[in-house]
């Protein structure tokens, strides 16, 4: 059974609502469409997709529930009874102060994903603890993404991006950036692949412990910042070694706000759009 649950919240009515087991879609209105909107997503598990669209509300759809994924079939309630709860990936949605918050509980069985559509002009902050992939597309605003396990994919966005993944790669394609906003991309195990507008003015700070850095931008590298370290032990029968700092800084198009790229195991790729 597919139910359409419409939850309309005002600033005065802020009690969080838990979607019933069968509900797969909910719509939440922002209390003041004229003011800046924000979406905050915190999940313990599952994948998260945030997509900008032409409407005015946040549309939340969950795909698959943990309960069913585990049993592999619909569990029929005993005769005369109905289910009021279980170990499904309960999704909680609330709205306060023009910020829609979505959180899902800890459910180790949940393969559930959540797809959230918001108006294009919305700031988005997504935090996944044990989740899979985070996908953010068609958004204009401040974007923050933090993923423990999966990769972070950000496409067709404008504004600013701050993204981290612990064990996944970061792919981001940005159409235009808000002037003066700082940005940052980081991952422990994975490559960072970022596409920036050709006209961007930025100071870049690049660091990879085990990887290479590639770009088709004309990056003016800062030679004065950290000169290579020379180790000369030849007189003592030792070796001669020149070591360059792992961190590299430089400017694109004359410099501007700072963009930081940090990875431990992986390459850094910066494409010109």
């Amino acid at each position, binding site marked *: 059974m597919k139910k359409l649950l419409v939850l309309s919240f005002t600033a005065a009515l802020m009690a969080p609502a838990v979607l019933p087991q069968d509900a797969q879609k909910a719509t939440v209105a922002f209390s003041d469409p004229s003011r800046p909107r924000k979406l905050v997503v915190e999940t313990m598990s599952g994948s998260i997709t945030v997509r900008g669209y032409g409407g005015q509300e946040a549309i939340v759809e969950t795909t698959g529930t943990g309960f069913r994924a585990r049993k592999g079939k619909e569990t029929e309630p005993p005769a005369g009874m109905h289910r009021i709860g279980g170990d499904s990936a309960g999704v909680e949605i609330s709205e306060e102060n023009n910020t829609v918050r979505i959180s899902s509980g800890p459910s180790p069985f949940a393969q559930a994903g959540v797809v959230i559509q918001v108006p294009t002009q919305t700031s988005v902050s997504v935090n996944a603890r044990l989740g899979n992939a985070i996908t953010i597309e068609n958004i204009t605003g401040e974007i923050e993404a933090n993923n423990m396990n999966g990769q972070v994919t950000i496409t067709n966005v404008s504004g600013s991006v701050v993204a981290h993944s612990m064990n996944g790669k970061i792919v981001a394609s940005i159409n235009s950036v808000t002037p003066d906003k700082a940005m940052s991309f980081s991952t422990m195990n994975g490559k960072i692949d970022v596409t920036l507008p050709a006209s961007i003015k930025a100071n870049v700070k690049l660091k990879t412990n085990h990887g290479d850095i590639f770009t088709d931008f004309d990056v003016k590298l800062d030679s004065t910042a950290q000169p290579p370290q020379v180790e000369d032990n030849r007189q003592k029968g030792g070796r001669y070694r020149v070591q360059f700092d792992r961190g590299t800084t430089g400017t694109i198009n004359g410099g501007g706000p700072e963009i930081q790229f*940090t990875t431990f195991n992986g390459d850094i790729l910066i494409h010109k759009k």
Partner: protein
Amino acid sequence: MTCEQARTQMLGESGGEDFAAHLASCESCRNEVSRIGTLWQSLDLLPLEEPSGTVRERFYEMLGAYRQGLASAEPRKAFVWWQAAAAAALLVLGLGLGYGVRGDKSRPEMAQLREEVASMRQLVALSLMQQQSASERLRGVTWAYRAEPSDREVLGALVTAVNHDTNVNVRLAAVDALRRFAASPETRRAVIEALPSQTTPLVQVALIDLLVDFKERSAAGVLKTLAANQGANDGVRQQAQWALEKLQ
């Protein structure tokens, strides 16, 4: 109907039997109505104000003057040698003055100005680091590079960011900004203390790299513990081992 009620009707679309009856019975209201009527009539008699012919003339005069002004400002003569010479002389003079002023720390106004700039930078860094948006906090960390290396408040804010900021990228940037404060033993101590409590591998690696760059031998104990910690991330343990070798 009272006089007061009647008066409210006088100004609008007056009418109704009550109103007529009241007028018939009340002389003062009748006078009032006829006075208002005359006023409207005399207002109608006033001629409509037409823009005089001179308005047009004056506008074009003004426009012409403006164009003339533009034209007279335009013709820039080709670059003359003495202009270049004057500019160069001024530049030399400015540099000389600046150099002289720079060295003179004893002058109280300069010291005060320096202090004001430093406290302004401190304020910007500190307030941006308090912002909700991670991007703004990153900007705050960037401002910390412009603070005085002796600024303990900015150092404190950076250490707080390294230990407690919710965003990994802000923590990473803050670790990097600590290089600015490398001279202070307080900074080194803070980095050593931050390492065991940090749970994000990438930030742990950044702290280890910083200790290596600081050549901080007193970090050996913390690094040994980390390298031996089975629960820690493999990459982090390798990095700690590598750092131990480097610091020996």
